[in-house]
């Protein structure tokens, strides 16, 4: 396929070249063909520097595909096996690059198959654009073949969606959709493109740089609020910085690092915030919440001043809100004003870009610290306390050599065997938690997972999107046996595109997270959570054209993983792990973070 050739062959420099031709079909040496609405849609993507699109063909979107093929400098396309995977791949692409990932699908089932991926992008505020085909406008409302009210269906799960029924407006609309997806708090947008509009001639092209006014918000937070927040922070005796996914999205990791180092404060991340501060940093207590570390949960429970940046206080983080950081004066920095005091009341609201706001508070504190001559070991006792908690609650696991392999070990070995900038993607379940707990993340945009929606099957398509986004980085996908089966067909895409990714299936022959909850909360009744039979993943991988491996002994772990990482192309490791292993620590849903259980008996 020519699309594939382009995906593989496109040199990165070429991609970085500025494109001034937002109307590719009007290049001088070629006779100008009449442009259509579809051409305008592709020209808008090109003008926005979109390099890759993930999608699946179909009747109503065919004109747009045709325009994509005709566009000279347009994006290349990765043909996915299922639209859900196209959406996840685009989502992961967006997470890794920080620029909108774009996917395409036809009307009806194509669009509805995208829905899970769109909802996922919405929950995790990922920059994401979907272009969907739609039946011709004259058929709309008639229940025509493959007609679904895509705009209606996706309204609650998009930042904004558009019905582009006028060929002359398609270019501008797609421009706005791409722009909006990546601006402010990122999120998914969708443009529904009826077939008559995409096939109508138009000379109206894209209009890059258009944004609805609300999203044209200032970067900096209100000075008076910053002053008050800095004052509260300076007063605090037990301060904690809580870094959310917003820190990653705002590329504010350097500012965060500078802040933490300058004021020597303990820092905790949320799950989406993993990597915003190196997990091996002296002050980093790793992530808090349901399966977070003991130290992180103790610190956020006992802090008297929580500087929370770019987090929406999800219930998996807070547990019961009644017991969340209950003694803390909360400084909440977020680019989205609507997040302020949504779940946890902010005593100080700093609406602005994370990097800008951290710097503002930093500067204010600098001047205050000098003025008040505050000694640098003002929080020495608190830091010592956090260190003690770290020592008291290490992330250990029992690993008797004569028992089945522990999943935590597999994760640790994989971490050791890969470079620091390796990207980890995951499915959803226990394996996701182990991948989050036992891998040491040192950089932002290395941890790519489905947080807010918790979508099983996210891992493999996300690995595809991540690899396309970062072809030179190692991409490791941890999947569960259940989760993997939800999108396993995408192995065909990885093989066809020859993507060098490694899927490690932490195979416990069960949908383990459910089994764990049944043991804890349903008196051990394993209804629909244990499989009587699980397919063999090694031959499955081979049948798809990937390389298959199996391991089930400690001795094999390192060698097998090395071999899989070394393999030049997609590989799958069926890591047969201890099916009884559970994820701890655990704060039961709605529970008190400081009451995390270390084992089932403590729940």
């Amino acid at each position, binding site marked *: 396929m020519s699309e594939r050739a382009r995906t593989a062959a496109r040199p990165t420099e070429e991609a970085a070249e500025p494109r001034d031709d937002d109307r590719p079909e009007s290049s001088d040496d070629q006779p100008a063909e009449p442009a259509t609405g579809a051409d305008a849609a592709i020209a808008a993507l090109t003008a926005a520097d979109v390099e890759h699109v993930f999608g699946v063909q179909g009747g109503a979107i065919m004109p747009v595909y045709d325009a994509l093929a005709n566009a000279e400098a347009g994006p290349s396309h990765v043909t996915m096996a299922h639209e859900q995977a196209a959406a996840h791949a685009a989502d992961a692409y967006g997470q890794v690059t920080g620029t909108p990932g774009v996917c395409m699908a036809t009307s009806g089932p194509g669009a509805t198959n995208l829905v899970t991926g769109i909802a996922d992008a919405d929950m995790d505020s990922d920059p994401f654009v979907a272009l969907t085909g739609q039946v011709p406008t004259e058929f709309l409302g008639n229940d025509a073949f493959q007609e679904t009210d895509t*705009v209606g269906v996706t*309204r*609650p799960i998009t930042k*904004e969606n558009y019905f582009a029924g006028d060929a*002359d*407006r398609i270019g501008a609309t797609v421009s706005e959709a791409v722009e*909006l997806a990546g601006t402010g708090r990122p999120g998914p947008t969708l443009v529904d493109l009826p077939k008559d509009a995409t096939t109508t001639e138009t000379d109206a092209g894209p209009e890059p740089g258009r944004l609805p006014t*609300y999203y044209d918000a200032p970067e900096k937070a209100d000075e008076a609020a910053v002053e008050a927040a800095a004052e509260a922070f300076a007063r605090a005796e037990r301060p904690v910085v809580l870094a959310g996914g917003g820190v990653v999205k705002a590329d504010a990791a350097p500012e965060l690092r500078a802040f933490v180092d300058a004021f020597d404060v303990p820092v905790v991340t949320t799950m989406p915030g993993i990597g915003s501060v190196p997990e091996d940093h002296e002050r980093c207590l790793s992530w808090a919440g349901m399966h977070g570390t*003991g130290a992180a949960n103790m610190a956020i*429970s*006992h802090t008297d001043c929580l500087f929370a940046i770019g987090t929406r*206080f999800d219930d998996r983080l807070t547990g019961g*809100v*009644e*017991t*969340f950081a*209950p*003694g*803390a004066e909360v400084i909440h920095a977020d680019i989205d*004003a*609507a997040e302020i*005091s*949504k*779940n*946890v*009341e902010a005593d100080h609201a700093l609406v602005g870009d994370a990097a800008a706001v951290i710097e503002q508070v930093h500067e204010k504190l600098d001047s205050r610290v000098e003025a008040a001559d505050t000694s640098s070991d003002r929080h020495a006792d608190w830091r010592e306390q956090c260190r003690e908690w770290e020592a008291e*609650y*290490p*992330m*250990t*696991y*029992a*690993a*008797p*050599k004569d028992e089945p392999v522990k999943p935590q*070990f597999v994760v640790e*070995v994989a971490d*050791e*065997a890969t470079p620091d900038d390796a990207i980890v993607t995951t499915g959803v379940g226990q394996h996701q938690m182990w991948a989050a707990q036992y891998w040491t993340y040192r950089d932002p945009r290395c941890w790519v997972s489905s947080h807010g929606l918790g979508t099983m099957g996210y891992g493999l398509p996300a690995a595809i999107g991540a690899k396309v986004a970062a072809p030179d980085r190692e991409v490791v996908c941890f999947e569960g046996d259940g989760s993997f089966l939800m999108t396993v067909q995408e192995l065909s895409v990885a093989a066809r595109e020859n993507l060098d990714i490694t899927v490690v299936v932490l195979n416990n022959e069960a949908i383990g997270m459910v089994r764990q909850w049944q043991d804890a909360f349903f008196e051990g009744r394993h209804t629909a959570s244990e499989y009587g039979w*699980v397919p*063999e*993943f090694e031959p499955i991988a081979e049948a798809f054209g990937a390389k298959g491996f*199996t*391991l*089930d*002994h*400690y*001795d*094999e*772990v*390192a*060698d097998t993983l090395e071999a899989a990482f070394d393999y030049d192309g997609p590989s799958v490791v*069926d890591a*047969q792990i201890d099916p009884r292993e559970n994820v701890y620590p655990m704060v039961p849903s709605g529970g008190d973070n*400081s*009451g995390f*259980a*270390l*084992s089932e008996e*403590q729940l």
Partner: protein
Amino acid sequence: MSRRNGEAAEAEDAADADDADDAEDGANSQFADPSERREGLTGPGPDDRPRPAERRSKQGVRIDPEAEASHPARRTTISALVKHEPGVLAEVAGLVSRRQFDIDSLTVGPTTNPETARMTLTIEEPEPGVRQVEKQLEKLVPVISVRELGRDAVRRELAVLKVHDDRPAAVESVVEMFDGEVLDAQPGTVTVEVTGSSAEVDRAVEAFQRFGVRELTRTGTAALARGNEWTTHAEEERYERQRIDPRTNRATDQSTTETAPGAPTDDD
């Protein structure tokens, strides 16, 4: 099942695993010697560690643990200036239902500017909820400006009631009492109109109950800020900009031309 227990299982050499472990603070070094077993998670259990005594309310507000948390709901009016385009009502209605906002009424209608419409929402929410309604509305792309109206805002609601005509004179006097109007009188029914604040309309409906209300429809509240005050922040600017251009006899607003591609754009 595909559990493999072939040659690799016999391999004694765990050296590679060890290499991998060393950098891990020696955390996994027990694999050099399987007999050196490591513990699972350790540390003081939930009852043996310090726990904070403070509390937040269900709304996430820090509270005095002794005092009862109370954020009483209050009834208030929110006005939203929106783009007059298809789908806005669905978007706002969807937002309200999805976020479980407690609303009494939502009205929508035109404004002085042909490109905008006004939505008026009467809501009953505790303070944090009122702010959420405002901010979530503001986030919607077709929403231009949102404001909670003061208690002194001018609020009006209309009800049309159809009552049985057994006692026409009595109906007439209730109509007069509430400054209403008889819209239709037929053998069997009298249809009347009442306007007023929501509370006044409530009282009127109550008063008409004695005749037996056969059918009833109410509009929900329409409201404007009082006096010189603009109802929402964008209002004044919008009002200035929507003035008719004498040359073209068209509105001159530029910022909303996306909804009216035909509007002239050369004069700002």
